[in-house]
């Protein structure tokens, strides 16, 4: 009882950040008439959590309702995803997910839901592009050096990544397949420990997102050999596309899903709110300070990507598990 009261108080505090910036709210429309919950199927303090805290701080002024973050980690994201899949399709329970959990997991595990049939995309917020990183004292000056050595010594180069079937494992496996390489993939519990392993010399190379690279790069501790992105993020670093590795490889998309069957007018209201959110000045400033980009994409556009992912990930998993 006391606990629930405290929980409510905390929830109110959660949106108070947004309340600072809230202007006069117009008369309430039919939806939303109560706060909207955004479920994150991942743990506290991760990049999804931080992104969501900013989204939910700013979006209330466009949705005319509070948006509350609920963290439901467990079973590699399946717990939270299942929770939303089973929620009523009324627009009051949304899911903040990423593409590996959304479209790849179905091929490596038996899911208690069907991601394609049970969810529709509302909006993509941004993506995090993976870069291939080596220590500054590494013998590899270019991506080609790395590939040449990996070919010369198959299975001997250690690549530290952030966990099996995760945001760095999948692109690594995709690149290995594209170039027909054999690397020794070593999992670490998260991107931080994987980077630490690179710096201490335990692994030969790793992957990282730009938001966690800036300072190490400036200090001259690491060198970037390639990065996934449409245009160059670092002036002197080629993109994967330039190196002949094309397609949706190395991008971790962050997007919002709703249960299938959500009424069209509710979807429209939500999409309109997200469309206004991504051009909001406070939102842009806060995301900028976190080092995150804003690359909005409508639900319809993102659905096209999802359908492509479901095909390419199936091929990848089939190839990896039959080897």
């Amino acid at each position, binding site marked *: 009882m006391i606990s629930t009261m405290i929980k409510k108080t905390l929830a109110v505090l*959660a949106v108070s950040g947004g309340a600072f910036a809230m202007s006069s709210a117009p008369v309430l429309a039919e939806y939303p008439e109560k706060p909207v919950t955004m479920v994150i199927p991942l743990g506290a*303090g991760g990049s999804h959590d931080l992104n969501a805290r900013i989204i939910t701080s700013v979006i209330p002024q466009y949705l005319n309702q509070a948006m509350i973050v609920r963290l439901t980690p467990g079973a590699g994201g399946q717990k939270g995803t299942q929770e939303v899949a089973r929620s009523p399709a009324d627009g009051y329970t949304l899911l903040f997910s990423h593409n590996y959990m959304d479209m790849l997991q179905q091929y490596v595990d038996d899911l208690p839901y069907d991601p394609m049939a049970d969810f529709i995309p509302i909006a993509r917020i941004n993506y995090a592009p993976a870069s291939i990183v080596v220590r500054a004292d590494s013998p590899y000056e270019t991506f080609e050096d790395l590939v040449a050595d990996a070919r010369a010594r198959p299975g001997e180069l250690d690549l530290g990544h952030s966990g099996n079937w995760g945001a760095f494992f999948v692109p690594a496996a995709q690149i290995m397949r594209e170039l027909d390489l054999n690397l020794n993939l070593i999992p670490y519990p998260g991107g931080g420990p994987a980077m*630490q392993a690179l710096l201490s010399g335990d692994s030969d190379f790793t992957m990282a997102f730009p938001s966690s690279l800036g300072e190490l790069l400036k200090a001259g501790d690491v060198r970037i050999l390639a990065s996934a992105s449409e245009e160059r993020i670092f002036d002197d670093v080629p993109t994967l596309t330039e190196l002949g590795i094309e397609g949706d490889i190395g991008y971790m998309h962050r997007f919002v899903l709703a249960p299938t069957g959500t009424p069209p007018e509710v979807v429209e209201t939500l999409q309109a709110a997200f469309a206004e959110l991504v051009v909001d000045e406070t939102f842009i400033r806060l995301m900028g300070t976190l080092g995150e980009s804003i690359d909005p994409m409508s639900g319809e556009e993102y659905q096209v990507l999802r359908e492509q992912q479901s095909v390419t990930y199936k091929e990848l998993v089939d190839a990896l598990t039959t080897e």
Partner: protein
Amino acid sequence: MIEQFIEGFGMAMRLDTMVMMSIGLFAGMLVGSLPGFTTLMAMAILLPISFFLDPLVGIPFLLGIYKGGIFGGSVPAILLSMPGTGAAVATSRDGYKLTQKGKSRKALDMALFSSVFGDTCSDIFTIMMIFPIAFLVMQFGPPELFAVLLMSLIIIAATSGANPLKSLIMMALGLWLSFIGTDPLGGSERFTFGLFELKSGIPLLPMLIGLFALPEVASVVIRNDGARKLSALVGERLKFAEFRRCFKTICRSTVIGTMVGIVPGLGQIVAAMMGYSAAKNASDHPETFGEGEIEGVAAAEAANNAVNGPTMVPLLTLGIPGDNVTAILLGAFVAQGLRPGPQLFEEQGATVFAILVAMVIANLLFLVIGYLSVPFFSKLVTVKTSILIPLVIMFAFAGTYVYRSDPVDLLMLVAFGIFGIIAKAGRFDVMPLVMGFILGPSMEYAFGQTMAMSGGNAMGFFVTERFGALGVLIAAPIIGFMLWRRLYGAARTI
């Protein structure tokens, strides 16, 4: 460096910093003392507020929540035998016995003083030795982590009871329970019997409350003297002489906690258990540990708080967050335009030192806030048993439910409660079980990584490349046996 420190010291001396830090400390203490709420949740929720504050107000505010929350967690552990986090398990052992003896106020005071002492010393040590610590941190990879975790488990099993077989059985059971769910490396399901509810594994909180709090409730109910109070007295405050008697233990635990903090991936739970085991081993009267020995509270609390300083080092020097708490702090730093990393000290040295100084000041402020709050907390146990017991049961169930809002957790709570009552009747200590359960997954992960790094030949890998880890692996059983013999050997047969 010295100039930056002095400049930073001046920057931290601000009234608004102190006020927000005090608010954070108080809020953290309240949240931490409610079972089911974690300081991590409170920090994540309040993080956006810090974005709108000055860096030297916002970050100390978050640090305050963190520090307050750790002490808050030991309040229900001492008063109700209800540890909300793994870090408070060792504290509850002697803390609750002291409460039963009517000395809850003393136990809380000791927890407060040793926490603040351990934390302050480790913070100061961290400020002075930040670069050597950063170097040391890099020496620990998965093989070393595996070796140290294995040694920790052996020491816990060896020191937790006279019958090492019983301890080992419980620990093996704990390890097995930790295997239930999705395999952390490969992602395959283990021992889930096809139940989705078990796929994410057994949650820690229902286990802790079920094993530690419910058996105590049951024993009060079975004694059936409802009219009496759980403890009529809250007792006196801590005397200086008592603090001085435990001072050596507090210092030892502070050193142990700081060392544990340097090893990435170990954390407060291991520190508390190691500090407790070491104090028991060094004591002239180890049999009093577990029976309401105030030194036990001091040992556990000083150690688990001393972890905090060094865990900040990878974040500040490399920009790498080692756990979720430091990940949130990284978010707060970055949002303020401070980008932790190798150059942070060169570019923003004064601000970083100001934040480190604020950490030390937070400890001193907390001494005052905590000291004033202890009398209110300790009053709780003077409530009549017929009212207190239903309250405790409500807290146990509500806390478990609030944690993940999953009704299955309530079934787990009851199951662990029943198991705890049976174990207590059979004189099986549940501590090794809990430690096996908590440390099992990290150890398994580190083992899997070691196997991957060595290409399948882990033994050869240890012998040819990882001498440090090999040394720890060889020493662990010897240390374990020596500790056991000293504590329970021939001279002390029971």
